[in-house]
């Protein structure tokens, strides 16, 4: 092994994560692993880590992203939820088998990941053959007057793709608009979010939501959405208020960490993610100090102020205004299920409210709620909340038979994103704290504004 190879195999492992069903928490842990670096594009990655269960809808994108890694490349599978690699009932193994040479390791196992990486560079593992067949579509070689598929000025399929078509622009011009499908594996969007949009320059024109890839997961939600689990449990079984509130603070801090990373503050995000990982009620002063610091952070304020304004008028048609949740409270709606919850009666609870309804208000809202949650946890002591009234989850109220918050919030996207610059759109999506798995839990989410999913539960079961 040459010096160069030896040095290369000790580099931080560039990893592109694929968040399957139930994999969001482990993906967060991946970010904090020492010796591992999450990268923004598969072109920079050497290892693809599939976390949780692949779904049929995720398969094609995963195969494509695998092939977009330059190589040498390896694929790891991190099972979550303690299930065996092959439970013999569904198509997981069948789906994974479409990827070449998948290594299964324990979720969060940095040593295993590094070992695979070192083997790869030392030539002890295969180079990583492509997963997709080498077929060009459509055919263009030898087609047309120049043999490159194009014809005339703007006609044909030069080198396999047609030209973009024109569309009206708000500046009064007719200019090209790129029809794009972004996601479900776009690292700056929540895992699983698929957006169909037109991009005119760097501005988005017309957004429709794509199919939720987690919906095709067969059966009842076995894993449940990340972080919401204690809140979902609280619907049906007694929970201590302190546990609920610490979980809320942790959820908001994790969201904050991811958001900071999106704004170019990876290191600050890591610090907060590490804080969130071991959070307890005694961290209240730290979180309050954090809230104060972020309130003074002019850079972050500038990056979020006025972006993605979801005011009460925008929220109303979707019923979010009356449901509450941080997004509504950031728009000045003082509704919180905890107000009427007897478990909070003696805790002096007042909903935190911000105004403006933009990304900055939502950021401040969540950080303030995190600090408030830890204060409540301190005050609550051993108080136990008995099931019955709706639970105020970190994204909104949860109650049996009620729409999950993410499935309502996601319908804000077409309105909010239209006309936004791409970077602002990413900020807006992040500020809504969407969880596609949570949206998938909800049966009422079948009414997607777009074409219905092609895959039924039955067809997903057969590999």
């Amino acid at each position: 092994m040459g010096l160069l190879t030896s040095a290369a195999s000790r580099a931080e492992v560039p990893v592109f994560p694929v968040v399957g069903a139930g994999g969001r928490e482990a993906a967060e842990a991946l970010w904090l692993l020492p010796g591992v670096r999450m990268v923004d594009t598969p072109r920079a990655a050497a290892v693809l880590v599939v976390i949780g269960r692949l779904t049929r809808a995720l398969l094609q994108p995963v195969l494509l992203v695998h092939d977009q890694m330059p190589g040498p490349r390896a694929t790891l599978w991190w099972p979550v939820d303690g299930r065996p690699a092959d439970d013999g009932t569904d198509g997981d193994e069948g789906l994974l088998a479409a990827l070449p040479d998948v290594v299964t390791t324990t979720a969060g196992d940095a040593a295993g990941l590094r070992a695979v990486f070192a083997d790869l560079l030392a030539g002890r593992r295969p180079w990583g053959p492509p997963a997709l067949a080498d077929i060009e579509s459509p055919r263009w070689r030898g087609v047309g007057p120049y043999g490159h598929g194009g014809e005339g000025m703007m006609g044909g399929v030069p080198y396999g793709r047609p030209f973009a078509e024109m569309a009206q622009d708000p500046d009064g011009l007719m200019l090209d608009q790129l029809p794009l499908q972004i996601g479900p594996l776009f690292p700056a969007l929540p895992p699983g979010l698929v957006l169909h949009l037109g991009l005119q320059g760097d501005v988005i024109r017309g957004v429709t939501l794509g199919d939720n890839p987690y919906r095709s997961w067969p059966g009842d939600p076995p894993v449940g959405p990340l972080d919401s689990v204690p809140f979902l449990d609280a619907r049906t079984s007694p929970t201590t208020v302190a546990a609920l509130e610490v979980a809320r603070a942790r959820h908001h801090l994790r969201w904050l960490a991811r958001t900071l990373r999106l704004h170019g503050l990876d290191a600050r995000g890591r610090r907060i993610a590490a804080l969130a990982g071991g959070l307890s009620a005694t961290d209240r002063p730290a979180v309050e100090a954090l809230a104060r610091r972020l309130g003074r952070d002019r850079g972050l304020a500038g990056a979020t102020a006025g972006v993605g304004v979801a005011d009460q008028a925008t929220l109303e048609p979707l019923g979010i205004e009356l449901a509450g949740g941080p997004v509504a409270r950031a728009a000045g709606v003082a509704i919180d299920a905890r107000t009427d919850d007897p478990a909070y009666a003696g805790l002096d609870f007042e909903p935190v409210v911000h105004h403006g309804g933009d990304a900055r208000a939502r950021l401040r809202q969540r950080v303030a709620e995190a600090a408030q949650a830890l204060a409540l946890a301190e005050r609550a002591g051993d108080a136990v909340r008995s099931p019955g009234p709706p639970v105020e989850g970190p994204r909104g109220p949860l109650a049996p038979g009620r729409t999950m918050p993410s499935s309502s919030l996601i319908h804000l996207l077409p309105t909010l994103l239209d006309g936004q610059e791409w970077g602002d759109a990413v900020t807006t999506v992040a500020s809504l704290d969407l969880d596609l798995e949570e949206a998938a839990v909800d049966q009422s989410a079948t009414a997607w504004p777009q074409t219905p999913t092609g895959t039924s539960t039955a067809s997903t079961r057969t590999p």
Partner: protein
Amino acid sequence: MSVGPFGTALVVVLATGIAVLATRWLPRADGPPPTAPERIPFLGGGVPEVHAWSRFHIRYYAMALLFLAFDMEMVFMYPWAVVFAAEGAIALMEMLMFITILLLGILYAWREGALSWAS
């Protein structure tokens, strides 16, 4: 051999550029040639329908035009800086007037909203 400072600068540019090109091309690329899917541009799992090269709408066109005018201004300011101390207060006054006139241009552009473009 002396080629003068400009000649040396040119040699430095060429040498740096060649070194960078060599670093780009030299590393082993002992994989097979890329397949068609491997060459698809990254869209987070999506496949582009059309070429990205298109009539790309720059929303900052008004600012770009403003820049053209301002760029001209630089031509005047460099020689001015050299002789400024020798010419004295007159030169300062001249520049103040020049700058004020140009600031009027920025003010106008700002008022007209030519500097911001989104939404």
